[in-house]
């Protein structure tokens, strides 16, 4: 489309060009756009250039001009010229190109295996090279199959390493692959694996950074150890569970455990997660796992846990004894073994005690201290004394238990008698303080006299015995206390 304005602009020669430009000032913008558009529709490079030069010249005289149409057209023409070149042979018009879009053009070039051109164009237009690279990589894999590729007569048989290296280098050079959201090594690896080149697939997969893509393929390739490792590396616990569940379904239990064991410290997190899962969903498996790994303490703990949920006393007793056996098998767990033995013994005793009181008091499930206190409260003081010896309860501990139990029973005479039975290993201040805290200030007063003289004033106060307190303070000349 040639208008007078265009004619005017394409004229050369200094002054006359200036005049012409000034003459068409109001239409200049339109004229520039028209030149650009016309250039796009020209097939001969000579004319493309002339028209763009004209547009450039005219632009200089405009105040506000959007550079984009000019730049875009330049790019477009470069691309069109390239594909129209006889070796490529795509006679595409400007209109077709605009309708098709550069992306689609790239797809077409790619499917014709014109990878280099496509990549260059993509780079030039700042489009993502990923789909092109993916296609190229897959083609390379097919072509370089040892012993000849599909459709290529005597195709080069490259080793897996060479191919992998080639692909990786290319990807990294083009800024795709690891880290980009476009093509994934996983997809290429899958293609390699499907072509039976497992070695190549593994090498490529190693470069895949997104575990969520990497792991399922590794599982499909039966690279179980690696799948587990990569899942653990990713820090994504859900992915680890996926792998574990998959392997558990597929492998016999022994192999499954061995796989985890062989993985060593690197897959230790997976082992932990498996234990968590098994604890909730599959106790049997957990038991087997601990057993196969010689984890005595864990086996023991599992039994203790079971014991705590068992209603039937004899079942509970048996589980506890079994737990004790596990603990005693570990030389460093002597203390724990003793404690578990004590707990079994306690259970047996508590059963007897419940029979003694005709089931009127619930002994089973209480701690040693609580059992002793309940004995005292039920009038089974001989039993309580016996327990004290059998469980090696210290004097201090026992006196506190007696104090608490008798207070609960409001057995003041008995408490008094007990307090005098011998010199209290805990002193008498605890008597005062405990009785006061339970609201028995009056009873507490009796014991203050046996306390440390320095503290008596304050103790009487806490009992509400003001007169006695006053006396104490006066005797000491404690003015502050008196007030």
């Amino acid at each position, binding site marked *: 489309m040639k208008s007078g304005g265009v004619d005017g602009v394409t004229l050369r020669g200094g002054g006359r060009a200036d005049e012409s430009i000034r003459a068409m000032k109001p239409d200049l913008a339109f004229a520039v756009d028209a030149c650009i558009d016309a250039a796009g529709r020209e097939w001969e490079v000579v004319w493309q250039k002339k028209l763009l030069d004209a547009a450039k010249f005219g632009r200089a005289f405009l105040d506000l001009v959007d550079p984009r149409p000019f730049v875009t057209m330049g790019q477009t023409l470069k691309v069109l010229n390239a594909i129209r070149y006889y070796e490529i042979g795509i006679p595409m018009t400007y209109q077709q190109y605009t309708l098709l879009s550069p992306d689609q053009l790239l797809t077409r070039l790619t499917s014709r295996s014109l990878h280099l051109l496509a990549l260059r164009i993509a780079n030039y237009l700042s489009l993502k090279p990923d789909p092109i690279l993916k296609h190229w990589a897959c083609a390379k894999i097919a072509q370089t199959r040892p012993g000849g590729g599909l459709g290529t007569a005597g195709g080069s048989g490259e080793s897996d390493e060479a191919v992998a290296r080639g692909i990786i280098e290319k990807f990294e050079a083009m800024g795709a692959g690891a*880290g*980009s*959201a476009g093509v994934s090594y996983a997809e290429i690896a899958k293609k390699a694996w499907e072509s039976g080149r497992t070695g190549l697939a593994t090498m490529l997969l190693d470069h895949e*950074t*997104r575990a969520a893509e990497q792991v399922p393929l590794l599982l499909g390739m039966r690279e179980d150890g690696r799948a587990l490792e990569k899942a653990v590396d990713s*820090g*994504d*616990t*859900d992915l680890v*569970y*996926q792998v574990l*569940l998959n392997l558990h379904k597929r492998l016999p239990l022994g192999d499954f455990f061995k796989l985890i064991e062989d993985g060593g410290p690197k897959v*230790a*997190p997976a082992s*932990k*997660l498996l234990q*968590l*899962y098994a604890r909730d*969903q599959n106790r049997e498996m957990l038991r087997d796992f601990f057993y196969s790994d010689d984890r005595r*303490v864990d086996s023991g*703990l599992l039994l*203790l*846990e079971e014991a*705590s949920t068992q209603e039937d006393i004899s079942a509970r007793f048996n589980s506890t004894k079994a737990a004790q056996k596990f603990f005693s098998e570990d030389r*460093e767990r002597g*203390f*724990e073994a003793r*404690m*578990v033995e*004590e*707990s079994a013994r*306690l259970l047996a005793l508590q059963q007897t005690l419940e029979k003694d009181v005709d089931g009127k008091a*619930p002994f089973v*499930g*209480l*701690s*040693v*201290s*609580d059992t002793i*206190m*309940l004995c005292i*409260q039920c009038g089974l003081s001989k039993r309580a004394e016996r327990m004290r010896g059998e*469980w090696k*309860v*210290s004097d*201090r*501990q026992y006196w*506190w*238990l007696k104090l*608490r*139990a008798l*207070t*609960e029973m409001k057995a003041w005479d008995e408490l008094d008698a007990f307090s005098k039975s011998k010199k209290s290993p*805990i002193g008498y201040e*605890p008597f005062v303080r*405990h009785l006061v*805290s339970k609201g028995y200030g009056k009873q507490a007063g009796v014991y203050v006299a046996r306390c440390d003289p320095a503290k008596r004033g304050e103790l009487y106060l806490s009992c509400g015995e003001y007169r006695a307190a006053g006396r104490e303070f006066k005797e000491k000349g404690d003015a502050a206390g008196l007030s």
Partner: protein
Amino acid sequence: MTILDHIRKHTAAGDKHIYTLILTPRTSTLISQVLEEEGVLGEITILPYNLQFIPLEDDVISLEHENAFKEIWLDGDETALYNSAQALLTLQRLYGLFPRILGKGEHAERLARLLIRLNSQQITTPGLPVSQGVSEKIDSLIIVERRADMVTPMLTQLTYEGLIDELVGVSNTYVELPANIVSPPSQANTSEIQQNLLASYELNTQLTHLEDLVAEGADRRTILRMMVLASVVSGGIKVKQLESLKRVFLQTYGYELLPTLLSLESLQLLQSNPLPPSQAHLPSMKLPFTALRKQLRLLIEESEGGTDAMPNDISYVYSGYAPLSIRLVQCVAQMNAVLASFNASDSGKGKGKGKDVSQASEMPKMNAHPIVGWKGFEDVINTIPGPTIDITQTGIESKAQGPSLFPKEQSTTTVVFFLGGCTFTEITAIRWMAKRTRGRRFMIATTGVVSGNSLIESLLPAAKPKTAKVAGGSS
């Protein structure tokens, strides 16, 4: 009723419903598996709801991930780590890369590395810009892992909110008041034991007092906290004493707590000194507490700490003990405060005891200094077990060269992330830091708000259905 119960009930009654299960922050393979095994997977639509940080206050955001501490350190389940990384990633997408990532501890390092890796994978979420530039609003991310400082949470919190958490328990910013709020259950007074343990004063005596408290029937969580405190601060307890203490504990509170004691042992929070041969070769998490106490001035004399109204050091939140975790944050973001406490005690020595309180003046408000990592404190920091993290991130369009300098008028934000939980007192201490610093704000991010009780509770066995009541009760 469980989800399954609901569905089965409806099916039995012939009701048709549309079931949608929303899991947060993401869907779970395990859950799908269980539902599949139960035969109901086909009837349910499972959707993820990516709820990350929840603002609890203007300056506190929390993942509200309960039991993160137990999951990470006892169970070895790093889900909380992964979720934390995703949440921090979102912060980066919104505000730009953290120019500097600092931290201390093995899991803090894993978190940092995970964050960097996830970021480089540019996993795009529709709707959020993929920001590759370094942040202009945030100057650094400081990751503090709970395990690095287990002393602080074991102490009784003395701030207002902290005390409420101790007595009643704050959950998701809500408090459920028990019926007997007027006369709450009596708390064993362990403040003397705590102070003495912190000062490494007569450990044996404190342990004997502790046994007495056990005999009195104190709350078992309190006893466990004190046991942990004693072990961590002293680097372990002598075998005989530890066994005696554990025995009394089990006899009083029940043998079913044996697993809890073993858990504490495996966490290296309740250790014998020396360690049994099988554990001697394991990597140690022992804190060199006495050295740290001196080098970081963790114990501040009353005369040096300012007044209640105008405290001049973070130690006011524990009446004279500066939380180790916060001292670490100060090393990075408020160096003058750590150094000032050195000077205070030096000058205090010259003047002798009984220093007039009014002379300990309030620490003047200082301008925020640029973040230079652990500079000046490397030696001290490296004595704490676990790797030390100091990573600089440069985005694609990096503008800053070297330490980020900013004009005085502009204020920056320092994000402090507590992996495993933080206490109310630690929040208060950081707020104090913010008030004393011109030009720097602090954003406290955490997996959750914890207390000594909540941490210990996560290690206790599940509550027994039947409990017997006896004199005083010893649960």
